[in-house]
């Protein structure tokens, strides 16, 4: 064998060993069960899950966005589940939680469809005791070998919230029906989400490492406003239907959101893109009353690619501050008569 062939062979060996090692890590690592950003435990969510959204909590609470808008319990910047988590379990999301995933089963099920998966580092025993002793109106029962905590259960057991530990690091909360379905799937080693090919495809398209993300298919998006008021004298403008939406975003150093919507065909995609561009143009026309809107309009870009519409938004926090409604100062001045 010549020296050069030896070099090539050695390189191949290094790559081969690396690939085998990587495949071994993939096989033995629980993360192999994950689909996109959805953790392994999330695969136990019901198969009719229609939308999923997730937060990297550490990045989220460290971001300027959370410092500005997320700390207020009633604020719109607070992610779904933070307040519920604190009230029902005593968990401090900022300290104890690594990741939150919120999954909905379809808007026709309303609030009853959603389930919250919380991953973090918490003392399961201590937390269980806290739920049992410190939270009012809590009872517990055994479901498929897992202790399930029921909140505010009425006589018929309907419309009650529930919580349970899927494992030492994962807590599931939500309506009783959804939580029990998730427990059943997890206990049986089932992964019904994998059978939802559309959702899996959307999850796999999520940009890795995003601070927050959301994916949804048509059934949720059917509740989007399909018509918007048109210009004076022109009646309403119909918004083309969207098959699915994928949203990813980061919050540091600025609010950066990437939204990809899949329309039914390229013509609808073009119409949708034109509508978004029109809305952006309308906002910039309002610049006379509010100059910040012109800056906001220039922070948005819209492109199309076949049946997909991509909307990119990059907003500095100074601009967000100028657009946010001013809160009254604490201990504001009293009127003196």
């Amino acid at each position: 064998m010549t020296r050069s062939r030896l070099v090539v062979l050695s390189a191949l060996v290094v790559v081969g060993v690396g690939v085998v090692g990587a495949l071994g890590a993939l096989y033995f690592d629980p993360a192999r069960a994950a689909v996109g950003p959805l953790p392994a435990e999330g695969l136990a969510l019901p198969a009719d899950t229609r939308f999923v959204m997730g937060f990297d909590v550490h990045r989220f609470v460290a971001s300027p966005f959370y410092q500005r808008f997320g700390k207020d319990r009633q604020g719109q910047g607070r992610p779904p589940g933070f307040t519920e988590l604190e009230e029902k379990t005593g968990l401090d999301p900022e300290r104890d939680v690594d990741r939150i995933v919120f999954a909905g089963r379809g808007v026709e099920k309303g609030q009853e469809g959603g389930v919250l998966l919380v991953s973090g580092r918490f003392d399961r025993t201590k937390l269980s005791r806290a739920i049992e002793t410190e939270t009012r109106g809590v009872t517990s029962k055994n479901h498929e070998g897992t202790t399930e905590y029921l909140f505010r259960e009425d006589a018929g057991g309907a419309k009650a919230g529930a919580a349970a530990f899927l494992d030492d690091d994962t807590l599931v909360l939500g309506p009783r029906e959804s939580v029990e379905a998730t427990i059943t799937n997890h206990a049986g080693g089932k992964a019904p989400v994998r059978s939802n090919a559309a959702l899996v495809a959307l999850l796999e398209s999520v940009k890795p490492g995003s601070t927050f993300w959301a994916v949804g298919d048509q059934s949720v998006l059917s509740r989007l406003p399909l018509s918007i008021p048109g210009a004076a004298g022109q009646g309403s403008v119909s918004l083309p239907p969207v098959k699915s939406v994928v949203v990813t975003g980061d919050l540091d150093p600025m609010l950066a959101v990437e939204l990809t919507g899949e329309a039914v065909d390229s013509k609808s995609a073009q119409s949708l893109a034109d509508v978004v561009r029109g809305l952006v143009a309308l906002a910039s026309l309002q610049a006379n009353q509010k100059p910040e809107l012109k800056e906001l309009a220039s922070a948005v870009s819209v492109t199309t690619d076949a049946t997909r519409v991509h909307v990119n938004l990059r907003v500095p926090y100074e601009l967000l501050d100028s657009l946010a409604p001013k809160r009254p100062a604490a201990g504001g001045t009293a009127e003196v008569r």
Partner: protein
Amino acid sequence: MRDTSRPVPFAPAARAVFDLALEGMVWSRRSLLMAVLLGLPIVFAIVYRAVLAAHIPPRVTPFDLYGAVVVFYYLRNVLPLAALFYATALIADEVEGKTLTYLLTRPVRREAIIAGKFAAYVATTLSLALPAVVLTFFILLTSQGRVGLGGAVPDLLRDLGVLALALLAYGALFTLLGVLLKRPMIPGLLFLFVWELIANLPGYLPRFTLTAYLRSLVRHRPAEEGISEIFGQILPTALCLEVLAGAVLVCLAAAAWIFSTREYVMDQ
């Protein structure tokens, strides 16, 4: 006894040229320089692990750094440069060194010469690039233990494939350039650092570049500033693979045809 009135069959001829070209390519100063360039991310990964990990903000994960290395360093800069330096020289070096005559007087088909030399280029560049990527991946992603390593493996495999495809595509193009032009380096550099910037423009223009297809194939999307972030398009995977495969075939076929029909007159 071989019939000496006919040229050597294609495969044995190409293999012989491959061996000869590989020996010349691997043990050259050019390869030493390329090895250093391609291996720099390994050094960075070691420095990150030893020193920088404690100082970089937690929002920048090792996986983010690996993605940035793949997209910005390998895919956009070093691999196209490696292809330029190697592939343009496949024939041009023989012409400049006045050794082409000796090669062409052998009973070897010209297409076999191109095939053997291109195969040697592919073997050399893959041998230099892929181990560096694998080592960088493991050094960076194990800096915080094995957590998350399994989840990143599909990206490693995908990246290795895309980087190999990048070497093939750029290599084929620059082989054609090397066959067409006497001095292909300047046009090659202009192509890489001027023409390929079109990939950052909106509309259909990016589809006339190679980089738009290559970066659509990787899943890493490092944050960028300016127009590349706003207008950066993600093209469908099937389209990217078809176009890149087509580019490789067309460029290589054109290079083989031009080389086999062209008359080379050596300067005295």
